[in-house]
């Protein structure tokens, strides 16, 4: 056990782990991730099987990589917490008493005699220290005055705060990986969908694509309404970079598509008896358009199939959701009587066939189809994310303390020596030696000169 603690608290291990993690990460960017086993076999031959076997096809989620991260976290944890308590004591419960002789082995040191009483000298020392913004603790013991003057004390904890932050971030990553959750919700305008694993629904009120004058996309905007028990509770226009937050979920504009289920149909109607007659009808499936009021003739669209094909039993169905062979089942009526019905094709007008009891004077042509757009909203819930932010704040605070807040410490002992005072001072500031030495000397000169 002690061996393990020593191993895990060693810096050598941290270095080996940093190199291994960096190396593994490089491999993950060289081998394309997330392909199928067959694709790896095709690309790398026999190596392909090794890649899949070692989970290098999803390296960052592989047992090896996660194991490495776990060991790294253990290393940081052991390293930080075995060294934390002496460091905390140094910051919060420092020892004021010290042996004057040991001060003389400090990085910065001084010893001199002052022609003042210990108490008067003490005042001078305190004044000099506070002039340089040191905060001082005092102790009177065995006729000696001990002073501990410090500034930027929090700097001692910089590295520990960084490491704690990293652990919080790794914990956050773990939580995200275990309980984070994401679902894509394709939504047509007006459509309502239950949000998976949530007690509310989301409705797409409006979906807009805004364009720049040059035709490039400026923005996709989905106006979403959250419904709780059928009642709207909030509405927001969701854009890329502007998600909607509700009930621990975030809703993102992630994609969009063309809705070929129910496009707007444009049909051209012609009369065989009157070649000059031509009318454009615009309608959707289920709608009826009157041709001219008096005669009472009307055209309606009964069905739409984006990719028309006949199956074995000669029933029409769609082969895909792409508009490869769009067809509309159209019906012509005179008043209440059906005159004819039949499939008309956009790509193959010559195959359009209208069947009816009587020959109709009207002929139909499928001119154009305008699909509506649907919006794809990603609903995401990630309970780990707050850990990531908290950890990030800790890491940054720690880095700033570690690099820009160098702690300084000066210890002074005043001893009475035949009515005069012997002053011994020693100080250290491992991270800003040069500046500290200059300051230390200034302070000592000030104490020496004071009367």
């Amino acid at each position: 056990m002690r061996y393990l603690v020593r191993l895990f608290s060693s810096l050598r291990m941290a270095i080996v782990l940093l190199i291994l993690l960096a190396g593994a990460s490089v491999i993950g960017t060289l081998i394309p991730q997330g392909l199928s086993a067959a694709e790896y076999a095709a690309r790398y031959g026999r190596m392909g099987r090794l890649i899949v076997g070692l989970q290098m096809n999803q390296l960052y989620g592989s047992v090896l990589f996660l194991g490495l991260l776990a060991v790294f976290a253990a290393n940081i944890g052991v390293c930080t917490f075995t060294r934390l308590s002496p460091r905390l004591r140094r910051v919060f419960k420092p020892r004021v008493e010290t042996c004057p002789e040991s001060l003389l082995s400090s990085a910065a040191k001084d010893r001199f005699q002052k022609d003042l009483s210990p108490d008067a000298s003490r005042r001078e020392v305190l004044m000099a220290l506070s002039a340089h913004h040191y905060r001082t603790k005092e102790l009177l013991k065995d006729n000696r005055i001990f002073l501990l003057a410090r500034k930027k004390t929090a700097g001692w904890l910089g590295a520990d705060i960084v490491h704690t932050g990293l652990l919080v971030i790794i914990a956050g990553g773990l939580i995200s990986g275990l309980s984070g959750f994401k679902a894509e919700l394709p939504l047509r305008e007006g459509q309502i969908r239950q949000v998976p694993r949530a007690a509310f629904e989301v409705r797409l009120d409006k979906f807009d694509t805004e364009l720049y004058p040059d035709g490039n996309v400026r923005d996709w905007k989905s106006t979403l309404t959250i419904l709780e028990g059928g009642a709207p509770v909030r509405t927001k226009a969701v854009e890329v970079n502007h998600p909607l937050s509700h009930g621990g979920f975030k809703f993102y504009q992630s994609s969009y598509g063309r809705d070929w289920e129910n496009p707007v149909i444009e049909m051209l109607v012609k009369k065989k008896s009157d070649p000059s007659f031509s009318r454009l009808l615009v309608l959707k499936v289920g709608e009826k358009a009157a041709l001219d009021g008096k005669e009472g003739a009307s055209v309606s669209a009964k069905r739409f199939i984006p990719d028309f094909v006949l199956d074995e039993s000669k029933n029409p169905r769609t082969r895909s959701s792409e508009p490869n062979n769009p067809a509309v089942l159209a019906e012509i009526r005179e008043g209440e009587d059906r005159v004819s019905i039949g499939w008309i094709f956009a790509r193959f007008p010559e195959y359009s066939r209208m069947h009816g009891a009587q020959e109709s004077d009207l002929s139909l042509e499928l001119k154009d189809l305008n699909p509506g757009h649907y919006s794809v909203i990603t609903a995401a819930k990630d309970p780990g994310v707050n850990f990531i932010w908290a950890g990030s704040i800790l890491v940054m605070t720690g880095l700033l303390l570690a690099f820009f807040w160098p702690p300084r410490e000066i210890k002074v002992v005043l001893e009475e020596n035949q009515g005069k005072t012997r002053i011994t001072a020693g100080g250290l500031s491992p991270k800003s030696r040069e500046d500290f030495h200059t300051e230390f000397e200034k302070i000592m000169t000030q104490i020496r000169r004071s009367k």
Partner: protein
Amino acid sequence: MTESTLFLAAFVVYILAAVFYLSFQFSKKFRWARAGFALVSAAFVIHSLALVLRTIESGHAPFTNMYESLSFLSWALVLAFVVVDRKFKIPRIGAYLILIVVAFMALASSPLMPKDVAPLVPALQSYWLWLHVSVTLLGEAFFAVAFVTSIMYLAADSRRKKGTASESAFSPETLDFVSYRCVAFGFPLFTLGGLIFGMVWAYEAWGTYWNWDPKEVWSLITWFVFALYLHTRIVMGWKGRRSAVIAIIGFLAALFTYFGVNYLLSGLHSYV
């Protein structure tokens, strides 16, 4: 004055500055370095104006394509150089650093880089574009300075070992120290801009703060390398050659994150 004129003017003045710094390098006369610094400062002001004009012209942050981002990176490099030179008084890094700036500016103005002002795609319409990219590139600029001082350290160190060091040469230790300070300055910037702001923005835009996208992974690799630099140095007391080598590897990783990922690997960060 248009943005491209100002860019070109800054480019020319940088070249002049590089010439002056090179003259200083060989003559060791400080007045050359002083003139070089004056030129760099002038070019920096012109370059800043070019970036401001570009922002006004395009209506968005000046780093949404390779040309803009190279121009901004060069600007950040000059800023880092000015800061480091003022603080540590080592004008002799000027020659190499300004040559790198000139190389980036040349690359930016090459015909390979489309310079048209393009409207912003939806994914980039966020103030995080400003924060994420500018802070990251500034951090990388300090890594670049550490790269230059590390190479100069290695050169100075081997000259010293061979005993061919000239008397007027500065001590290699200064270079080593400046490398460390640049890494110590660039590392928090890179962590904040590249990783943390990147995660925040990714979460706002894609719903996942980390996607293991190649650019993210290479940022993490860069971060690992500089973490290695800091740990070996602060805790294990590594200095000199070994530290210099790690700093050089770190900057090359950062450079690959910036360039290589775009041209060699595909992923979500395919804007720039």
